[in-house]
């Protein structure tokens, strides 16, 4: 029951901050990977190449769904910004339900850009059902479809190394983030710019996704400070023999 109360309080904080952030200007610290992503978006529109966005293979009915949902939020804004490009962005997933949502999200991005008639359903793809099957299916997209930037945001495992390697061979930049620690270390080594930890969830706010996304960053910061203070106070209390 305590957990439900905490979630309720966080939800209220998120709603209040969303309303407040609508009126206040947004200021973010610089994250090099997201600056590279914004440059890559501009490049893909200018030189007629396409973005490959992969939202991983985290099933929506498991606790791995959080990073996939964050990836979809970013896909929505990337689709909106690059829908007018000669080559539309391609989204790949390794989970059937996630691939349906990726198609829907791409369509939403096109619709927001006023270019719904340009939407092609096959740009949202399921490339495989198993992690390695998914990677094997996504590698030809990077290799054969004139991709200028490879964005990996979602739940990945060790197979993400095959994707970063395919991108490296084609001189395609990779920007990656995952909630899986193995994939995080691989993406740190294999991508030009890696996002670490909670930066995955900040990406859509940096792309201008709106007040709700900015508010959720503030909520995360507040909670992080609360956790840090609680940990420090607990350590001091333990040291003094109070608990």
């Amino acid at each position, binding site marked *: 029951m305590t957990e439900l109360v905490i979630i309720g309080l*966080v*939800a209220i904080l998120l709603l209040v901050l969303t309303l407040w952030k609508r009126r206040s200007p947004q200021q973010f610290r610089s994250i090099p990977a997201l600056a590279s992503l914004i440059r890559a978006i501009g490049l893909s529109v200018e030189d007629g190449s396409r973005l490959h966005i992969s939202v991983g293979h985290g099933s929506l009915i498991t*606790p791995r769904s959080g990073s996939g949902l964050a990836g979809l939020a970013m896909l929505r804004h990337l689709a909106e910004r690059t829908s007018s490009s000669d080559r539309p962005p391609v989204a790949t997933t390794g989970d*059937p339900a996630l691939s349906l949502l990726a198609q829907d999200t791409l369509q939403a991005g096109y619709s927001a850009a006023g270019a719904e008639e340009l939407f092609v359903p096959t740009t949202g793809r399921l490339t495989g059902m198993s992690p390695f099957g998914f990677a094997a299916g996504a590698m030809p997209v990077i290799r054969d479809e004139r991709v200028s930037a490879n964005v990996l945001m979602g739940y990945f495992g060790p197979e993400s190394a*095959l994707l970063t390697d395919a991108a490296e061979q084609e001189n395609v930049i990779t920007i990656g983030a995952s909630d899986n*620690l193995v994939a995080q270390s691989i993406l740190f*080594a294999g991508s030009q710019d890696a996002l670490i930890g909670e930066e995955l969830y900040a990406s859509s706010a940096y792309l201008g996704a709106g007040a709700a996304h900015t508010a959720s960053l503030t909520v*995360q910061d507040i909670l992080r400070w609360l956790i840090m203070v609680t940990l420090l106070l607990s350590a001091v209390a333990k040291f003094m023999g109070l608990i």
Partner: protein
Amino acid sequence: MRYFIAAIAVASGLLVLVGYFLPALANVEMILLNWAMILAGAAMFLGIFNLISVHSEKIRHREKGNLYSALLLIALLGTFFLGFILGPDNISMRILLNGIILPAEAMLMGLLAVTLLYAAIRLLRRRVNIMSVIFLISALLILIGTVTLPLGNMPIFGALRSWMTNVLAVGGARGILMGVVLGTLTTGLRVLFGMDRPYGGK
């Protein structure tokens, strides 16, 4: 219509969340989760149709790699019909799984070892900073502390490896996971309240 869809999604999400904590709503939560699993099963069929349509397009437009697309479709349809006629427990289906699919995945896993080593070597060329240097030195020390060295094991590397994995790595991992949990919580709440709607196509 889209408000109606959002209302259903928000109500379902709230019922599942509250049902997780309140035993009185546990049955409703279970029913909704069972529906979600049935829908995920149905999504698999749609996913396969998506796979077929993507590769059919590639063959029709004679795109690069269309031969592989043709092979994929032949293998997919062949396996489907064999499985449909013979059943998944038939010896032929087991040979397909154990003789082709599993070795192919194992081969990709083997390829991963080389790929990771290559990525580690290229890291310093791609991004020369203090974090990359620390990353590589840590990986090297863990490797030296784990593998059997030609001149025999040096206990100091074993102890160092143990300290690095049990203290530094665990501390760092907990910090990262804490950030991930907070991010997942706020992302989940955004979807729950309909602020993010990855459904409805609008």
